[in-house]
């Protein structure tokens, strides 16, 4: 199979990740719950992952809160900063993991910056929105639909200037582009463990510059007599048993990424996206591409429904994703809400050979339709 759906999850997982998960299942007990060898092995493994993630993302180990997913982390962060009815600024390319919790809180949402690949528009709209004194801002680093890399450094700087606490969604960027908690000024940064970090599904990290409001309350292995959740990180955000095999897998993924030349993965993915964009344009596809594009690319095939096209590709051993990608807001911004798009998303091991085979298949499929 030619796998071009890394935006959904990275696949296949590296051997080191699979080994780490397996080893944890053989060796690890429940960390922070006992003093015996298996519990202490697990505790040590989890702390090593906190340390590694902290180094990778410029955070103290205790600021690394393990979650079940990026969505879990975003919900925790949003419920910390946003009360029902609060005014919140978001970008025009947010995922349902951001818009649904805000909808659930009946937040007054200001959507700022709806033009793809247009930093000037994004920043102008962003600053205008921040002047309306929102309670918080939430924005994605890279659109999961279009691969648009938002000008997050400047957006973050503006949030700091205007005194607006903010949450950064790094679902598509963690492990690929630099993400730094302290340097960014973010209150929270959420990410999945299973995409750019190459770990298993069921993992995520919420980097916390401030204390979160717990989304879940329960056992933390600490301060058991008190009925309030502990004040201190990371326990405050980690009720219940941690996914130790998953966390060990994430640690192995981070270790692998730490050995790569910085920026290499991002550069290669962007080049592959650019190559595919040119090839698809020659096939009369409508391709959504521009400056500030990462390794995610959306397109509309000529005269074919996206879901049927995706099915045809799947029959021929090529995995991509069709539809709204859990991001109707992004599609609304780009004018593709009625059709959805076909999305290709690259990973660190995606190759030119794979893109060439994809384009040959696309040519054969789309030529038939003419």
């Amino acid at each position, binding site marked *: 199979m030619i796998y071009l759906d890394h935006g959904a999850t990275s696949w296949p997982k590296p051997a080191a990740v699979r080994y780490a998960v397996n080893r944890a299942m053989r060796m690890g007990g429940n960390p*922070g719950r006992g003093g015996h060898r298996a519990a202490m092995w697990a505790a*040590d493994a989890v*702390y090593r992952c906190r340390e590694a993630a902290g180094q990778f993302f410029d955070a103290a*180990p*205790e600021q690394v809160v393990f979650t079940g997913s990026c969505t879990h982390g975003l919900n925790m962060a949003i419920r910390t900063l946003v009360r029902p009815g609060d005014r919140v600024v978001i970008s025009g390319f947010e995922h349902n993991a951001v818009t649904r919790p805000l909808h659930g809180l009946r937040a007054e949402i200001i959507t700022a910056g709806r033009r793809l690949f247009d930093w000037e528009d994004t920043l102008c709209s962003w600053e205008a929105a921040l002047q309306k004194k929102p309670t918080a801002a939430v924005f994605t680093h890279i659109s999961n639909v279009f691969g648009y890399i938002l000008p997050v450094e400047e957006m973050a700087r503006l949030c700091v200037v205007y005194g607006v606490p903010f949450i950064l969604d790094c679902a598509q960027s963690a492990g690929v582009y630099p993400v730094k908690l302290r340097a960014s000024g973010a209150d929270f940064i959420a990410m999945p463990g299973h995409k750019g970090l190459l770990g298993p599904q069921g993992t995520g990290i919420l980097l916390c510059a401030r204390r979160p409001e717990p989304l879940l309350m329960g056992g933390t292995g600490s301060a058991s*007599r008190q009925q309030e959740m502990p004040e*201190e990180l*990371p*326990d405050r955000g980690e009720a219940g048993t941690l996914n130790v095999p998953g966390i060990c897998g994430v640690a192995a993924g981070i270790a692998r990424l730490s050995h790569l030349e910085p920026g290499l993965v991002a550069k290669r993915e962007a080049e592959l996206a650019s190559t595919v964009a040119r090839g698809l344009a020659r096939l009369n596809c409508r391709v959504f591409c521009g400056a500030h594009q990462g390794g995610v690319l959306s397109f509309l095939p000529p005269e074919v429904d996206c879901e049927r096209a995706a099915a045809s590709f799947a029959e021929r051993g090529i995995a991509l994703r069709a539809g709204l990608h859990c991001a109707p807001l992004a599609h609304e911004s780009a004018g593709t809400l009625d059709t959805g798009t076909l999305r290709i998303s690259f990973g660190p091991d995606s190759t030119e050979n794979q893109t060439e085979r994809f384009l040959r298949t696309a040519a054969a499929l789309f030529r038939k339709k003419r």
Partner: protein
Amino acid sequence: MRYGYITFRSITFAQRGQRALQRGGIESALLRTPGALSERGCGYCLRIRPKKLERAICLLRDEQAAFSRVLVQRENGELEERET
């Protein structure tokens, strides 16, 4: 053998403390806090040789590794809390 104990509010804090002491050349054992010492119920501590205790406290403070209590074992085995 007599020991000193430094308790922490969570295992993560204890682990951070242990790393700080390691960097400072002090070995410690990460253990469950004895029930009688655990004010809030359930916790972890670092067990250290008494003669290293003062330096350990300094290292933890320098590295901002927050700890809760410091206790030293007397000759009769009882634990005495040290003011910090």
